[in-house]
């Protein structure tokens, strides 16, 4: 694959999705297998959340892949399963035996669909009855006998009568207001909070009595609405009353195919007033949902791979690979131990051969380790290639024109990392398209090309991989972010630096919009994105220029299992610093360290004063030998801030096998993991980010 491909989302120029079908089929097969096992083991009377969530995730993953690769029938069925499962995991519905039955039957149907897409023979799968049953169950009603053979008619019957449970039509009266235009802020709320519903002014917004009236469709209850509106208008000035049925949100005529009410599932409908957006969105969704598999949905059929292609890969379980990696880790430790003992022999000529052998062992061990680690590495293209399809659909729904440019798809990343980074990246890309890229007319008016561009770049930088999501949209609005932060009760003084203002979008509860999409993302906010990336040992950086766009850079370690470290001695202990965080080190001379404000200590390094962190004190390290106590300072950096760590001595640089401390012991502050040294001692790996944050307090 080329290092850089440019693909207009209108087509898939340059990307042949079929190369990923095989991976998708394998993945989907695993997910369905897991789901079936869990469904079979599910105790309907006392289902635990863990299992329900896990089952939901299986359906969710299959749906995401199917939608990406264009298997509409699979996506349709999994979407309906997901809707039902979502209600179960949220405890909106209690699991019942018929639910488990229909989910199992759907799993079988999915397997058949997938087999067909893989080119195996088999009758086309009629899923109408399954879909209808799940819809009915998801609405909290009993399904009619699911076994009955299903001609076309029944599919429509339950749906038409169903309406949409929980959706209410209300008339909201606001006033009297000094400035009637204040009421427009309510409409603004509905635009900002996707799942809130829809709002339309009544009386053309100009009633004679100075009151404003709105017709609202929402799932929220009155209290929730009043709480929200309360940000803008006093509660006593708002009256909420049910609206008569005349306002017809049951648009589907009896017997007609069920129509997704635009208000109930707005999907991407952030810009409700965008030309063509809401109508097109509902239409498109309905269109794909209605295409029955029986008529031969235009889903692509995977090419059956040539025999030669198949033999070039070998499927093995992740457990086996992980076991291999673990063993190599142990081998690395054994080798380091031998090398240490062998150093003493190097001088003696009779043992020169042994020393040479040890040197060879070291080289071979390192090569073996790299080779084994690379088994788990997969190219970023596997993630990136999900996006053209997703963006194309999203752009169409929003009425926007977006081009996707990807660079560095060949950059490899650990499989575990790829799986965990896919959702956060999807969210970031969606965000760029939703909120960054302007509508074509607006772009033209600003002198920009009609097509917005979203650029995805993956690259290696030192021991990390950096993934950048960049758009040339409108950028972040400093004033609006500050205002929104204050509305949400977040302290946000005007004096905040730009970078700090941008990072407000990561504050918990800042982006609360819950967006349900075809591809991914139920209720994932930017705070969750940041949290997930941090949990992977990564960091996020935002840059933005109003009017020119924004860039989000995600920095991740290459793998979670091995790390380049620098070992330092402190008292009786040895600690590991991630090599990437080490800037420099120097000898401490008397008078260098100054005390400020009672207990704080700083050291001057060239023209900069750095906080001094005494590791001996932080970890209350026992000490016998005072000969070189705290003689060396190591300057380390995290999140752009530097501190100087006081240590006794630098012991050396080495690759360490990271062992999870929490899994084996418990969470320790300022420590990110542990490793076993060549001499068999356990050394803690320091969490430099946490030490840097500590120094700020």
């Amino acid at each position, binding site marked *: 694959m080329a290092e850089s491909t440019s693909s207009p989302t209108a087509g898939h120029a340059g990307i042949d999705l079929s190369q990923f079908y095989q991976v998708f089929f394998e993945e989907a097969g695993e997910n369905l297998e897991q789901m079936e096992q869990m469904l079979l083991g599910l105790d309907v009377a006392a289902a635990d959340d863990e299992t329900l969530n896990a089952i939901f995730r299986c359906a969710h993953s299959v749906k995401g892949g199917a939608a990406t690769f264009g298997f509409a029938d699979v996506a349709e069925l999994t979407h309906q399963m997901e809707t039902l499962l979502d209600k179960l995991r949220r405890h909106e519905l209690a699991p019942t035996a018929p639910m488990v039955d229909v989910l199992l039957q759907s799993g079988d149907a999915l397997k058949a669909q997938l087999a067909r897409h893989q080119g195996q023979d088999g009758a086309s799968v009629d899923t109408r009855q399954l879909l209808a049953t799940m819809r009915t169950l998801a609405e909290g009603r009993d399904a009619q006998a699911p076994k009955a053979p299903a001609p076309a008619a029944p599919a429509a019957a339950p749906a038409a009568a169903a309406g949409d449970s929980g959706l209410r039509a209300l008339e909201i009266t606001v006033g009297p207001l000094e400035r009637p235009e204040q009421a427009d802020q309510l409409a603004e709320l509905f635009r900002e909070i996707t799942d809130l519903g829809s709002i339309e002014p009544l009386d053309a917004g100009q009633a004679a009595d100075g009151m404003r009236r709105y017709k609202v469709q929402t799932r929220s209850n009155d209290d929730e609405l009043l709480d929200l509106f309360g940000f803008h208008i006093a509660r006593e000035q708002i009256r909420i009353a049910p609206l008569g049925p005349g306002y017809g949100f049951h648009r589907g005529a009896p017997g007609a195919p069920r129509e997704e009410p635009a208000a109930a599932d707005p999907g991407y409908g952030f810009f409700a007033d965008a030309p063509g957006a809401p109508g097109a969105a509902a239409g498109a969704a309905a269109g794909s949902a209605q295409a029955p598999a029986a008529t031969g949905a235009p889903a692509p059929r995977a090419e059956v791979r040539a025999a030669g292609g198949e033999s070039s890969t070998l499927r093995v379980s992740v457990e086996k690979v992980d076991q291999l990696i673990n063993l190599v880790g142990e081998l690395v430790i054994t080798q380091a131990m031998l090398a240490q003992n062998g150093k003493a022999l190097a001088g003696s000529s009779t043992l020169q051969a042994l020393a040479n052998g040890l040197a060879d062992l070291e080289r071979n061990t390192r090569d073996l380790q790299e080779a084994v680690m690379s088994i788990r590495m997969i190219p970023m293209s596997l993630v990136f290639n999900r996006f053209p399809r997703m963006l194309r659909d999203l752009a169409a729904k929003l009425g926007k024109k977006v081009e996707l440019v990807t660079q560095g798809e060949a950059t490899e990343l650990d499989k575990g990392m790829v799986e965990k980074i896919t959702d956060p990246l999807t969210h970031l890309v969606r965000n760029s398209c939703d909120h960054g890229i302007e509508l074509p007319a607006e772009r033209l008016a600003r002198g920009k090309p009609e097509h917005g561009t979203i650029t995805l770049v993956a690259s290696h930088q030192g021991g990390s991989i950096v993934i950048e999501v960049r758009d040339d949209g409108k950028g972040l609005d400093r004033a609006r972010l500050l205002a929104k932060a204050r509305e949400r009760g977040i302290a946000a003084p005007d004096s905040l630096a730009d970078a700090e203002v941008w990072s407000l979008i990561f504050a918990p509860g800042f982006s609360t919009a819950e967006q349900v999409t075809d591809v991914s993302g139920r209720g994932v906010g930017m705070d969750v994105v940041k949290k997930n990336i941090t949990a992977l040992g990564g960091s996020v950086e935002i840059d933005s220029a109003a009017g020119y766009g924004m860039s989000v850079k995600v920095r991740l370690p290459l793998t979670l299992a091995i790390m380049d470290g620098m070992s330092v001695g402190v008292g009786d202990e040895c600690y590991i610093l991630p090599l990437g965080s080490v800037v420099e080190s120097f000898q401490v001379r*008397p008078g260098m360290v100054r005390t400020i404000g009672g207990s704080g200590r700083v050291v001057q390094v060239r023209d900069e004063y750095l906080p001094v962190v005494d590791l001996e004190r932080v970890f209350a390290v026992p*000490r*016998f*030998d*005072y*000969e070189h*106590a705290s003689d060396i300072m190591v300057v380390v950096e995290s999140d752009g801030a530097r501190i100087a760590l006081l240590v006794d001595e630098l012991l050396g640089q080495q690759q360490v096998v990271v062992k999870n401390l929490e899994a084996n012991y418990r969470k320790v502050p300022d420590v990110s993991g542990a490793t076993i040294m060549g001499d068999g001692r356990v050394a803690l790996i320091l969490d430099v980010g946490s030490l840097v944050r500590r120094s700020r307090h």
Partner: protein
Amino acid sequence: MHTILAVDDSASMRQMVSFTLKSAGYQVVEAVDGIDAYEKAGKGDFQLVLTDQNMPRMDGISLVRKLRDNPKFRSTPILVLTTESGDQMKQAGRAAGATGWLVKPFDPAKLIEVIGKVLR
């Protein structure tokens, strides 16, 4: 008020150590070797012992061992202040029961800091 037993066969060294400790507010009793030190230790009340290693009659590590055998000094901090910086000697001191190992020449401020830390 803490009282420290300072042991060294060199008079100039004893003076310097005494001066440093006294200026930091400690009371000091001096001893010239291990045997002298052990006798004085039996009679007085010391919160810390600071001893040289290489001395006639009884060296520092032997003194440490002897003091540790005496229940009265089982938990009294004992620091060794010596020119010896070899790992083997340090380990021997540690095995004998010394609390810490300092190497001459010493920085007076550092000596006070270490003693403060050990006595806290």
